[in-house]
């Protein structure tokens, strides 16, 4: 865990040279006296130090390593050593010197696989806290950026960085979050998802209450909006709070393309996700309870295809969705090359064979495939969307469209009544925050986004100043 080369060059070699000097009696008596007086409780011993012993001051003067901390408490020293730092103890000196020569194996900064952008920065967070903090600092070169270091996990003693922009972020939110993190009492914290689970206000909700990102540019932008971020050592996934459902339909790329294109992308994502949530359920409910919803021609085609099927439409859709989810799960876990062939076997061979054998109908496979693809337009919503899709399917299969509408109403009401860190997940739509609709589904140009979103109640609202006082919009340029 320690960089031995650095220790040798910057610590061992200078220390050995001190010894040589001391052997030559080069240290002056005044230096020895000073060093002896500087240590609490160590006076006697250090004053008693004679030839062959070294003082703290001399050590500090001679060591070339840039990161050296003095520690006297055994507990703190143990903590630092367990963290991977080196400890230098000298005979006659009661203070331990912690050498920050930690050398942990980390992977290189690369594009996060779950958050790929065609345009815009491609850096992603990694598992190392310091690297992540550096990536953030690289983007926010402001003294207002604060990274408060907290620790949690009895055995893992994981570093958690509470990141915010002082003077922008709402202090109430930061304090509340800090308290929550300080109250975490858990054995180990291997990933930020543990922090999410432990600080979430609604523990049993299928909806997220904390936003996540793997990209430093997105993280920095969210902090600049007035949110609080959390970096957890050992996790490439950073957390942002408060969270709004709207975030899942936004992508970092939206800010690097024209606002028209960004709006189209967002609309597409919303429509695709709605389709993927409701399409299987809608199909089942039309087949079982309300055939009028489909045009007659389509109804006849579906009826013709489904005449000899062994399953009811609800059971059939349920089975296909189950196969889809199984394939998805397997293709993620499998090695890459096997995963690709598995997808082909699953999608083409299995689907085709099931239809030919008369187990499943083609429309059901098309609908589930469409639904499956659609959900991936909002990758951060996949977990929640997948559960909702199952729920809606079960409800639609048992109660028809009325059940589906009840379930939708239930979901909506749940979302409007559930606050996460003082923010309703459906904001800025319910409650309607007119100002923040500029970056809702419709994305305005950068010039119109001159103020930070109101929903985070930032201390400083101005984000962009393009006009001088008294200057009219048409006077510019």
């Amino acid at each position, binding site marked *: 865990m320690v960089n031995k080369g650095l220790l040798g060059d910057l610590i061992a070699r200078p220390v050995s040279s001190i010894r040589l000097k001391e052997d030559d009696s080069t240290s002056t008596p005044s230096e020895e006296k000073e060093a002896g007086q500087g240590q609490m409780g160590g006076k006697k011993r250090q004053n008693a130090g004679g030839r062959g012993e070294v003082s703290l001051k001399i050590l500090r003067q001679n060591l070339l390593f840039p990161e050296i901390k003095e520690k006297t408490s055994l507990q703190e020293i143990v903590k630092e050593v367990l963290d991977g730092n080196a400890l230098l103890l000298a005979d006659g000196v009661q203070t331990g010197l912690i050498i920050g020569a930690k050398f942990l194996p980390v992977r290189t900064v690369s594009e996060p696989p779950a958050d790929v952008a065609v345009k815009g920065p491609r850096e992603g967070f990694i598992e190392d806290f310091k690297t992540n903090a550096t990536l953030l600092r690289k983007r926010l070169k402001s003294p207002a950026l604060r990274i408060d270091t907290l620790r949690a996990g009895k055995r893992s003693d994981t570093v958690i960085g509470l990141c915010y922009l002082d003077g922008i972020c709402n202090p109430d939110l930061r304090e509340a979050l800090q308290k929550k993190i300080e109250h975490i009492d858990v054995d180990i914290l291997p990933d930020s998802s543990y922090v999410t689970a432990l600080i979430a206000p609604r523990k049993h909700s299928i909806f997220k209450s904390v936003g996540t990102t793997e990209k430093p540019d997105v993280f920095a932008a969210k902090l600049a909006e007035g949110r609080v971020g959390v970096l957890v050592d050992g996790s490439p996934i950073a957390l942002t709070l408060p969270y709004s459902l709207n975030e899942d339909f936004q992508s970092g790329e939206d800010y690097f393309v024209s606002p028209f294109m960004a709006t189209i992308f967002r609309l597409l994502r919303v429509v695709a996700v709605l389709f993927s949530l409701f399409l299987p359920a809608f199909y089942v409910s039309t087949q079982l309870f309300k055939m009028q*919803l489909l*045009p007659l021609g389509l109804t006849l085609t579906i009826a013709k295809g489904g005449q000899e099927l062994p399953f009811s439409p609800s059971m059939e859709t349920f089975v296909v969705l189950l196969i889809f989810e199984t394939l998805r799960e397997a293709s993620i876990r499998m090695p890459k090359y096997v995963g690709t062939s598995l997808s082909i076997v699953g999608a083409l061979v299995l689907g085709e064979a099931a239809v030919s054998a008369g187990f499943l109908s083609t429309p059901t496979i098309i609908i589930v495939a469409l639904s499956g693809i659609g959900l991936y337009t909002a990758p951060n919503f996949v977990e929640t969307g997948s559960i909702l899709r199952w729920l809606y399917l079960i409800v639609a299969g048992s109660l028809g469209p009325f059940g589906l509408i009840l379930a939708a109403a239930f979901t*909506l009401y749940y979302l409007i009544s559930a606050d996460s860190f003082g923010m309703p997940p459906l904001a800025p739509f319910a409650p309607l925050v007119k100002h923040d609709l500029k970056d809702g589904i419709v994305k305005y140009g950068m010039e119109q986004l001159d103020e930070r979103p109101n929903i985070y109640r930032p201390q400083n609202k101005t984000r962009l100043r393009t006009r001088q006082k008294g200057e009219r919009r048409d006077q510019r340029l």
Partner: protein
Amino acid sequence: MIKDYKLPAVNTRQLCFLIAFLFPIARFLEAPRLLASAAKGDLLIPALLSLLLQGASIAAFLFLSYKTDKTLFQLIENALGKWVAKAVYFLLTAYYLFAAVLPLLDLEKFSYAAFFDTAPTTFSFAPFFLLSAFLCTKNFKAVGRSADLCLFLFLLPFAGILLMSIGSGDFSSLLPVFSEPFKSSLKAVAVTKPHFADGALLLPLLGSYKYEKGAAKKAGVAFAVSVLFTLLFLAFFYSVYTTLSPREHYAFAKIAQYFPALAVVGRIDLILVYLLSIVYLFYACLPLQLAVDCFCKAVNLEKKGLYSAVLHIGLFVFVLFFNSRYDAVYALYSQYLYPLFFLFADLLPLLFPLLLIKKKTKAGTK
């Protein structure tokens, strides 16, 4: 937690949305048929009269919220004492339960007509009580936010339905105005009173809504929009069904089905109807939410869950029993019990400002 937040549970915008987008939905199900059966082509006149009465109670609510920040309970308690306040709250609980019955039965029958090709059992409607029981445990902040949602859920489907039905309407059937005797319009007002009794739904929001500058104007505009939506729908309804109107139950679900393109793409109008149904679900739950709230305040209950559960089990049993007596219940409400709606929805909101006068006299101010 971002502290707040001394913001009111319901703000002016949400109050306006409640008036403009939630309340009109109550008049789309059975009210058009009842109005047409009593007033025929003059159905807009009784609707307008009823809406004006409702406007008065909304104005009274705004006046109360302008004059005081207190809740209705505190207002009554200050003026008449705690026990009277409790008694009034028990009465209001009873009224809201009573007022919830017709929307509930309407919703049940409407769901059978619009959501099923088959003949469903009463148990198909039972999950509504789960939704309603859940809604009843929520506070008025959620009611306000649901009003925000109604903006999106109401406007687009409503516009879509009207656009699809415009081609099949014969608007000349609404003419001449005043073709029926005025007495029939008054009768229509009485018969449809349960559908135009939304004024009372605002009363418990007192205290949760804080009057803001210019709120009266905004609420006035919202009320005008609400009137416009109601009259537009009634006009479309009568123009499409004309003399058949008195027999058309839940016309709202089928008014757009004659749109020619639907033959090619299926009944996509039903998707719009379903979206509007979410708004109706919120509306049907509102009196129950208020009943639970009033009861909990009257008996000083913090947690609403248990009472809400008991209430909804009772309601489900009621629906089970009266499911087949739908016409009888309707007749009872529209022929005998409608004065109660006048009393609670129109008269009571106008009487509450008197409590302010009494309080002032007592305190010796102004």
